[in-house]
């Protein structure tokens, strides 16, 4: 930790592939029926500034309720941000009208967690993929269309002879492959994968992870990979962002985050992953966090991690708002002095 101590993440909307500039997504819970008191505001995404480079895989990690899914839906413009701007290749997505967004969305696609819920059970694989292909090529039909569907299925490691089948005829891993093929069908530049392997068995997980990594490289895609599981993310991601209560606490190269995490929360997350080795697991030191992640409704002030912090802290932690700061080249952390202490 030396000369690099500039607060804030440097962004350049014209240079970087995807830019999030101080994005906030709040959900207003409205007012009570009679007294008209505010029921409060859920601050799901609370000031995220981030850039994603073309061709990279950014891993987004956090516990449930940290806002990672809301952030992905905000990037997709499925939920419009309350404030802040989002640029994709210099074009400001957050300023586009709903109609223009629909047109733009073929450039960025999403893969969801549950392959059982995200495919239409009444459509064959052929129908599902053909529909997606037509959003890019409205006139595609006949053999050309079928040929493209077959090609997509081969790309994701499935047998094109199965294109007339319905989702229920496939296993979870195969359905996730279909969902990946559907995302690729519109020839997108950016793919957002929201917990794509969490519902799958370990032996199937690695097949899907390999596939996603290979496709990103071969097709020159950019991907945001969202997961609660750091051990999965560290494998697939080039860079990792750690989210907590709507904010990014740490951001850096995957090796920086995994090998020498700076923020106490990242260290605790790393140490909570059970190691599949009896001796290591029984002897290693763990940082145990108390309690559950607090609610994004009325989040704590100051460094929002203080209610669970295992380190000694004083009142300053509850009042001083930390800023994401470059601690070493490319490695950012929220500059709360208590959270960044050496263990």
């Amino acid at each position, binding site marked *: 930790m030396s000369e690099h101590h500039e607060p804030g993440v440097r962004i350049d909307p014209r240079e970087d592939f995807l830019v999030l500039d101080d994005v906030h997504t709040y959900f207003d819970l409205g007012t009570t029926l009679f007294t008209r008191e505010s029921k409060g505001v859920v601050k799901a995404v609370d000031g995220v500034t981030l850039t994603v480079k073309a061709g990279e895989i950014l891993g987004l990690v956090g516990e449930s309720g940290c806002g990672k899914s809301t952030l992905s839906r905000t990037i997709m413009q499925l939920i419009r941000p309350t404030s802040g701007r989002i640029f994709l290749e210099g074009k400001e997505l957050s300023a586009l009208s709903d109609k223009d967004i629909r047109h733009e969305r073929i450039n960025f696609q999403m893969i969801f967690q549950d392959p059982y819920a995200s495919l239409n059970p009444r459509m064959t694989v052929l129908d599902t993929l053909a529909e997606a292909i037509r959003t890019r090529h409205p006139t595609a039909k006949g053999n050309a269309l079928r040929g493209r569907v077959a090609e997509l299925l081969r790309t994701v490691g499935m047998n094109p002879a199965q294109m007339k089948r319905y989702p229920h005829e496939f296993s979870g891993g195969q359905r996730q492959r279909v969902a990946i093929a559907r995302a690729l069908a519109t020839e997108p530049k950016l793919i957002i994968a929201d917990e794509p392997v969490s519902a799958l*068995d370990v032996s199937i997980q690695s097949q899907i992870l390999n596939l996603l990594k290979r496709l990103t490289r071969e097709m020159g895609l950019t991907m945001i990979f969202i997961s609660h599981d750091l051990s999965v993310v560290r494998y697939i991601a080039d860079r990792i962002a750690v989210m907590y209560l709507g904010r990014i606490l740490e951001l850096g190269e995957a090796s920086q985050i995994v090998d020498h995490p700076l923020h106490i929360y990242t260290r605790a997350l790393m140490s909570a992953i*059970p*190691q599949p080795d*009896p*001796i290591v697991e029984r002897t290693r030191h763990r940082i145990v*966090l108390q309690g559950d992640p607090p609610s994004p409704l009325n989040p704590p002030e100051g460094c929002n991690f203080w209610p669970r912090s295992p380190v000694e802290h004083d009142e300053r932690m509850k009042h001083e708002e930390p800023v994401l700061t470059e601690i070493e080249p490319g490695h950012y952390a929220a500059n709360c002095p208590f959270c960044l202490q050496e263990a």
Partner: protein
Amino acid sequence: MPLLEVKDLKTSFYTRDGVVRAVDGVSFSLEKGETLGIVGESGSGKSVTCYSLMRLIPEPPGRIDGGTAMFDGQDLLQMNEAELRKIRGRRVSMIFQDPMTSLNPYLRISTQLIEPLRLHFDVDKKAALNKAIAALEEVGIPEASSRIHSYPHEFSGGMRQRVMIAMALITEPDLLIADEPTTALDVTVQAQILDIIKKRQEVLGTAVILVTHDLGVVAGNCDKVNVMYGGRMMESGTAEQVFYNAQHPYTRSLQKTIPSLQTKGAELYTIPGLPPDVSKPIHGCAFYPRCPYPKTGAAEGDRPKLVDLGDGHCFADCHFCDSSAPIESVLTTDVPVEDITPAGAAE
């Protein structure tokens, strides 16, 4: 005599589409205070094994086709409903995966917590309530005396799982069956929950069956491990034996697929193919179609027998996975197996 000795348990479901052999010949034994981990992928029969022991298999379509489960001298599989009711929740308790659905949303926590006490012991409401408050405090719920009157929806997922643990252990059972107790929880909360189970187990001397798909959870918490695949046992032994001296190709493959054990940058190791369809009869070795070193003949004939290496370490000997098998063991340790502190002795 072991606390629980299961021999050749077989449970099938008779459906319109055929017979699903969910559990097909599972044997294990468990001593007082020990922890047994059952590992396997979905459909491997690990949950059905637990439900069979608790006799919670819906019949029909399910049926326990054979085997014995001697629990303290009595066969759980032969008991009638009245005998079972005396044991369930009193001497054998269960925690389920999803704490959201296993608590009754209409009843206060207090009502649900004192129910097992009132059923199994002669206590009045007030004494039961005091015991319930103490039980909540023991699993780390702050302000237990006021929060006990809340409803389940007022608790977070981790807190609900704590309530489940408190409820399961309130009668100080001899055996706790935990079916994926942390799968629905975040890693930080998972660590807390596993710690609580371990601490309570030490105090009460309860034996635990921990069902999980996560080899990491097994490594830190279990004395013994059963590896299941396609309703059958592939390998069993102490955690050290199974982790450091894995014999069966499936165990080794499973270890190899774990992302954190892989060399960085390399492609993840994968087991090709899909888990077996247990609704069709499986001939020979269940893992044969996905085995990295299959031999002709393994797909036919009798199922491989469980072979004991002489120290309680058993594996399904498909006579191809002998010590000359070309799949190298994933984990090794320099410490001789005898010198490794057992899980229970760790501080």
